[in-house]
């Protein structure tokens, strides 16, 4: 039976989740930003936005996290495992692109060996997505095989059907259990069948033909466009840090004389230090090489290794870029080049 969630029930939803011991993450206004963050009440939830400034990534791969603690006494060391990092959580109101990033990242954190910090948080978290009813010029989910109402990675998908009502679709067993457990928070649709017709879903313009991107990348590791496009790049990490699929990290120790932590921190391929060897040799010593790495990793290397594009078209990197580097523009250039090859000099 079709179910809906009325806005007036948001309160009971949050209370219901709290009662069941869930931590609830939802979009929240923070001066000029809209951030996915912990909420205590429904009043805090902000849904009038295209995209949250932060991605869903940080709830599975935090910007900094302990992976080991230790104590040092003279020359003896004892180690302790971090605990309590995987808290029962519901992410409510994330966008379909963010949700779709999760199964893509599952591949790298599970292949060959399992990163429990990612995996256990994934297991503990239920994703309730709200389909996008609006988009902006930076959105390009439809160009990477997704849509503003994609279900990939979501456990429950909500779609606006009127100003105060959302159609509820359960996507996974986990989602079904959650909906069931909240009982009357979700109500049977007033007019079964019609809600599906009134779904308010944004129209995201298709900007480039994705199938043309990889063939071009296969042939053009050396090409003038890398440098031409990236001269303006200032080499910061904003694009990689706001990206829901960029997952590179650093491991460092932080300690006092007697105890310390080994921590995992976000790191990014646009920093010149990222690949610098101790000897001073740097395999990617210039920004065009680093920019190429970001594009190649997302649209060629990851595809070859894990059979997924490492991009969900959320557009965050382009929105925050200090120098207005626009990733979909780069991909448009690539897709066009693939159709009309020009000389590479």
């Amino acid at each position, binding site marked *: 039976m079709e179910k809906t969630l009325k806005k007036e029930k948001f309160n009971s939803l949050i209370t219901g989740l709290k009662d069941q011991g869930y931590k609830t993450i939802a979009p929240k206004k*923070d*001066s*000029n*930003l809209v951030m996915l963050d912990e909420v205590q009440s429904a009043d805090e939830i902000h849904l009038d936005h295209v995209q949250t*400034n932060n991605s869903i990534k940080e709830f599975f791969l935090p*910007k*900094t996290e302990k992976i080991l603690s230790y104590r040092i006494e003279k020359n003896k060391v004892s180690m302790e495992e971090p605990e309590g990092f995987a808290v029962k959580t519901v992410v409510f109101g994330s966008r379909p692109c963010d949700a779709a990033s999760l199964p893509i990242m599952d591949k790298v954190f599970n292949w060959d060996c399992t990163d429990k910090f990612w995996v256990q948080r994934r297991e503990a978290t239920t994703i309730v997505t709200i389909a996008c009813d609006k988009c902006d*010029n*930076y959105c390009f989910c439809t160009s990477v095989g997704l849509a503003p109402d994609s279900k990939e990675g979501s456990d429950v998908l909500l779609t606006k059907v009127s100003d105060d009502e959302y159609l509820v679709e359960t996507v996974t067993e986990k989602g079904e259990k959650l909906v069931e457990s909240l009982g009357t928070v979700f109500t049977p649709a007033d007019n079964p069948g019609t809600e599906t017709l009134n779904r308010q879903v944004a129209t995201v313009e298709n900007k480039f033909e994705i199938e043309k991107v990889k063939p071009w990348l296969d042939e053009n590791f050396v090409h003038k466009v890398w*440098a031409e496009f*990236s*001269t*303006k*790049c*200032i*080499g*910061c*990490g*904003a694009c*990689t*840090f*706001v990206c829901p699929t960029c997952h590179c990290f*650093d491991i*460092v120790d*932080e300690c006092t004389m007697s105890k310390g932590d080994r*921590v995992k*921190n*976000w790191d*990014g391929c646009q*920093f010149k*230090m990222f690949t610098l060897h101790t000897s001073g040799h740097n395999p990617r010593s*210039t*920004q*065009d090489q680093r920019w190429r790495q970001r594009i190649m990793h997302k649209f060629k290397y990851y595809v070859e290794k894990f059979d997924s594009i490492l991009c969900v078209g959320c557009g965050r990197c*382009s929105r*925050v870029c*200090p*120098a*207005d*580097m*626009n990733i979909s*523009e780069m991909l448009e250039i690539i897709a066009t080049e693939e159709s009309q090859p020009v000389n590479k000099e």
Partner: protein
Amino acid sequence: MIEALRKKAEELLRSKTVDVIYGYGEGSTPERTRPVFITKPEDVNKLTWNKYCVYNLTTYLKRQEARKLGKPAIVVKGCDAKTIIVLIKESQIKREDVYILGVTCNGVGEPQATKCKACDIHTPRIYDELIGEKIENKEISFEERYAEIEEYEKLSEKDKWEFWQKQFAKCIKCYACSSICPLCFCDRCIVDKNQPQWIDPSAHPRGNLSWNVTRAYHLAGRCINCEECQRVCPADIPLNLLNKKLAKETEKNFKYRAGYNIDDELAMATYKEDDNQDFIK
């Protein structure tokens, strides 16, 4: 004005006075511009000038990728031109290394950038060629120039601490602030030095505090208030409050404003026996 700019740029490239123009071009949306690097005279039509030209393009003087293109002419607003004065004073560039295409400016940004509200530098104080009608640089009082931080200064010490703790909690350590800063030109930044580890690399409260405070202090008496760090911060941290506060203290104590006069001695790199030392007691 755009036409005059393009004409001059074309002339500079044709005469080989410079190899490249660092200028503003159309951005990915109508509300944005982006840095462009014009090396061919026939490409000068890519140059533009409008109220969205917020960037301080002198930051590309520190980037090897831009420097590789040869001697530049840089489009600078009055505020940006101050950077060149500091860079010359700090021996980072020679005056003859850059051709300064000064543009007169009545303010940028939509809504208008904070720095424009008390602007006393509509016309650059240093240039090789001025584009646009000269606008008289009006003197603006000390109070008015630092009005932006008035509210902040009224906070108690405890409230200030809480305010910054909340702000720095948002920091993700992407280093956009230092990457965009034309005066953050150290080849190896202090955050990249780990023997010893001066600044915790983690984006936790301690690491974020030490990074943001160190960054601001390293710009004390040097920052020319282009506000680029604040503009680019993806976490929306009001970094310019720190810069502005330090600029105010520098002016109060040393009567020095960074980038205003090429003959001024640098506040932090000049020793004087009669320096005001009250602040250090």
